[in-house]
């Protein structure tokens, strides 16, 4: 059974770790997008097309 248990453990661990990494990446990027949106909202407005 040793090989069987090793096979299941390794494969399921790889899939679980990759899945967790995907969730973490998505969460990190969602927060980064929110930060950019907040920066855009608070940034000083540049000259308009007429001013240039």
């Amino acid at each position, binding site marked *: 059974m040793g*090989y069987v248990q090793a096979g299941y453990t390794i494969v399921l661990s790889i899939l679980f770790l990759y899945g967790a990494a995907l969730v973490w990446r998505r969460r990190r990027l969602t927060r980064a997008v929110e930060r950019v949106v907040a920066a855009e909202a608070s940034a000083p407005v540049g000259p308009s097309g007429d*001013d240039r």
Partner: protein
Amino acid sequence: MSSNQTVSTPPAPSDIPPAPSDTRPAQSLRPPAQSARARWTTRIIGITALVATGFTVWLGLWVTPPDVTQGNLVRLVYIHPGVAWVALYLAFGLAAVSSLLYLWPRTRSLFWDRLAAASVEVGVVFNVCTLISGSIWGKPTWGVWWAWDARLTSTAVLLVLFLGYLALRRVPAEPEVRAKRSAFVALFAAVDIPIVHFSVLWWKTLHQGATVLNANLSPTIHGSMAWTLLLGFVALTLVFVWMLLVRYRIGVLEDWLGTGELDVALRERQAEGAAIDEDEAA
């Protein structure tokens, strides 16, 4: 704008890149929102995949009987062909189809490029799982961890080809250029998929022939073993779909963030140029 331009010489108005709002529709600056329905669909698929995988493990390790010839080693059949199915046929097959649809002028869209990229990344993970589980099965069965067998070697070549695809995507380029060259590489790599599938028929290999997808489409496995094998295929397919949806969303966010950061940088540069103009005028 030339690179040797100094701060003391303000840029000509024509050199200043236009404000994002001048060049792009306002809605493109909005963050890529995901509908509640899409979020719930992803969540439900994820939970179903988790439950189905749990059932497969329970049936595979404790419920199904050992094999007459292989004994308990046969239990690896409930995960090894499943991960191979996902990697070879679903993930890399989908990547090839998506790449083809990107290259086809009528269907050209970055959606297909993102889908191909997401599919390849998930497929590479499943391909690694295929090689590892196969190697663990091979040691007690064949007496070696690895053999330069046609099936094993062509699967390893497939992994290297798609790792190359992922490496190519990291080379900085315009999205359209990157998408086009990635699509060509994906199609080139996909040539290996039928080679992997038919390798057990074309050459004399250590690896056994197809159990389910054989020439007669007559599965050579029965009873609870067959049902558990089928459940394993379904479970791992659901895991793939969930991973694909999440990875695709990551691609959308990455792409948006790239242009979002560029917009912020352009706006800052514009504000800087305007301040220099005011100083000069004063």
